[in-house]
């Protein structure tokens, strides 16, 4: 998953559990598109193979969230993706494959953290728990293989670490902004929700 993020202009109540599932779905759909493009740019057969598997995972995850939404009688809606938009704004448009990999690494890590946080919430239905656990197995592999790919590149050229550092800084800035935005929104709503973390399905 490429991390979702809180919504800025919801067309439905963003505290609705369906909103979070739609955010997850949108993030997976976006991720499939991003990984497909990286796959076309892969500079080794092993990376090409890993990215192909990763793309398959993103597409399956999007389908799983689509099915989960349907099963609880929800609708597929368009949701904003402020995490991606802001990450790009802070980092700039990636200019190298290494830039793309670094941005994907921080996004995947953020996605893993969000799915784990969701799992830790009370009142998560068994069906959603199973979906989260299944997807997390794939997500953890995504983080692992991208990290290994980047570390191999760091060993060949230490400047690659600069791209990783820049991506991590961008991610932290975005998350800080979104957390503040989420807190502001929840204070307005008066329900104590913050950045989707207390929303559940």
């Amino acid at each position: 998953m490429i991390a979702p993020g809180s919504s800025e202009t919801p067309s439905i109540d963003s505290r609705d559990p369906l909103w979070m599932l739609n955010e997850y779905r949108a993030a997976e759909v976006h991720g499939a598109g991003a990984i497909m493009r990286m796959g076309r740019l892969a500079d080794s057969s092993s990376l090409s193979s890993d990215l192909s598997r990763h793309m398959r995972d993103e597409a399956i995850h999007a389908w799983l969230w689509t099915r989960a939404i349907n099963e609880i009688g929800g609708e597929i809606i368009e949701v904003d993706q402020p995490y991606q938009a802001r990450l790009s704004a802070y980092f700039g448009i990636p200019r190298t494959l290494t830039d793309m990999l670094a941005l994907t690494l921080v996004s995947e890590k953020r996605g893993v953290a969000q799915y784990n946080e969701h799992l830790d919430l009370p009142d998560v239905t068994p069906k959603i728990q199973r979906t989260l656990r299944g997807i997390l197995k794939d997500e953890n592999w995504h983080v692992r293989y991208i990290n290994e790919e980047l570390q191999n590149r760091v060993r060949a050229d230490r400047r690659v670490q600069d791209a990783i550092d820049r991506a991590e800084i961008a991610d932290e800035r975005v998350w800080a902004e979104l957390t503040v935005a989420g807190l502001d929104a929840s204070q307005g709503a008066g329900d104590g929700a913050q950045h989707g973390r207390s929303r559940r399905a």
Partner: protein
Amino acid sequence: MTEQEAADLVANLVCRGRHLDPSQISETTDLVDELGFDSLDAAELLVALHQETGLQLDVGSVKDIKTVSDIARSLADYPGQQKVADR
């Protein structure tokens, strides 16, 4: 690299990425307004250009992506055509 060579390269990469026939674009094609380029398209193009030339064009946002010839000019004018290794 001459500006014409750069324009040919950019056009080829755009066509490859968007599955277009070369006859469908020209040097004045606006990639955002006419082809609907988004940030992912822009990233794919910049990374492909880096892989082909070793040059890293600094594009702040997709709004800075204009026409094929604008990008070609940036490539041709790249300071000293200094190549920056990716890895």
